[in-house]
């Protein structure tokens, strides 16, 4: 395994770990998702640069655009949750058990 492959894989896995294990705030879950997308951007850019393939070097831009959309939708959900639940703590999201 080359160092860059290891670096972005472990960055992504760390982001996933942070998303999965005991988040307190919805915002930090969203930040973890953002970090995961960021490490994917780095992976995609270094891959296309390393392969030297021209046609795939625009792919990271599309990835960044779509992940920006995802982050925007996530923040909209944060605002909606703050309005309905009064807080952004993930523990308050417990209405649906019944």
């Amino acid at each position, binding site marked *: 395994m080359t160092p860059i492959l290891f670096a*972005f894989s472990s960055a992504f896995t760390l982001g996933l770990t942070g998303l999965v294990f005991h988040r307190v705030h919805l915002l930090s879950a969203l930040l973890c998702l953002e970090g995961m997308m960021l490490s994917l951007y780095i992976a995609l850019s270094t891959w296309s640069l390393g392969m030297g393939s021209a046609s795939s070097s625009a792919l990271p831009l599309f990835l960044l655009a779509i992940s920006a959309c995802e982050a925007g*939708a996530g923040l909209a959900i944060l605002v909606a949750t703050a309005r309905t639940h009064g807080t952004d703590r993930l523990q308050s*999201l417990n209405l649906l058990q019944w």
Partner: protein
Amino acid sequence: MSPYILAILLFSLGLGTTITFSSTHWLLAWVGLEINTLAMLPLMAQNHHPRAVEAATKYFLIQASGAAVLLFAGVINAWLTGQWDIHQAAHPLPIAIITLALSLKLGLAPLHSWLPEVFQGLNLTTNLILATWQKLAPLALMLQIQPPHSSLLIFLGLMSTLGGGWGGLNQTQLRKILAYSSTAQLGWMILVVQFSPSLTTLAILVYVVTTSATFLTLKLNKATNINMLAISWAKAPALMALTPLVLLSLAGLPPMTGFMPKWLILQELSKQGLPATATITALTALLSLYYYLRLTYAMTLTMFPNNITSTPPWRLPSAQLTLPLAILALAAISLLPLTPAAMALVAL
């Protein structure tokens, strides 16, 4: 919600699934899944009450992380093999990660616990979209990848039929029961995906028909738990006489359409030399049958001790469109004789 925005959202739902269907590149498949998720969110939270917003939040977190893991597996695959093609993803590690990510998005059993809660927060129309249309894109990707190690898929399938049956046993909420039912049905499809993808296609078609019929019935009666279902004979007596057959079709009992995929899947599993898997799957279907039968029992077979205080509501005309329900219920009950034609239709 403004009808223009609704049109944009529904168009984007269609666009996302179409892109995922027609893509051969992992990034484009991911874009399609993301469009699906984004367009679904306002539909889920359109009432803006806390439960709907909470369901949208959970759905967003699950789908976004599932899609991110899917794309991560695609990138890893590109680094290891230099390939972005969905059909040519051959390295076992990315394939396994992709299978798990798609299972998370579909709600297969070890990764299914978000599904009942999200279902519980939504109205029945959105639930119908979530239970049918939103399953298509991940399932299409599942059909296209090279099969991973076969015991992974069999594990996911068995866990889904078992967990889907077990989870619904103690439920009185119809939406949660249908969520568990969805998990169980998808388990059947996943069991056979590596042996005969066309059978999986057949199973998802039958699942879409029977589940749509069930959701439309519940929507007509505005029923979200068993007690409300128990008095719905007063709203639509003829429909309530038919609905047990639809539910038993969903359970997979012989004279109904739902028996078709289960029969063929069991036959395929036995042909592949997996009699133990086939037996366990058939037995776990009994768990699902229990809660379908309980619904039937509460709805039609007994008269629940609930008082109807007003004039029987079937006298009042209903404003809802009933033609789709009629067609789907008929298809859900009586298509079993068309098994050879259906198999020819989906033959790959």
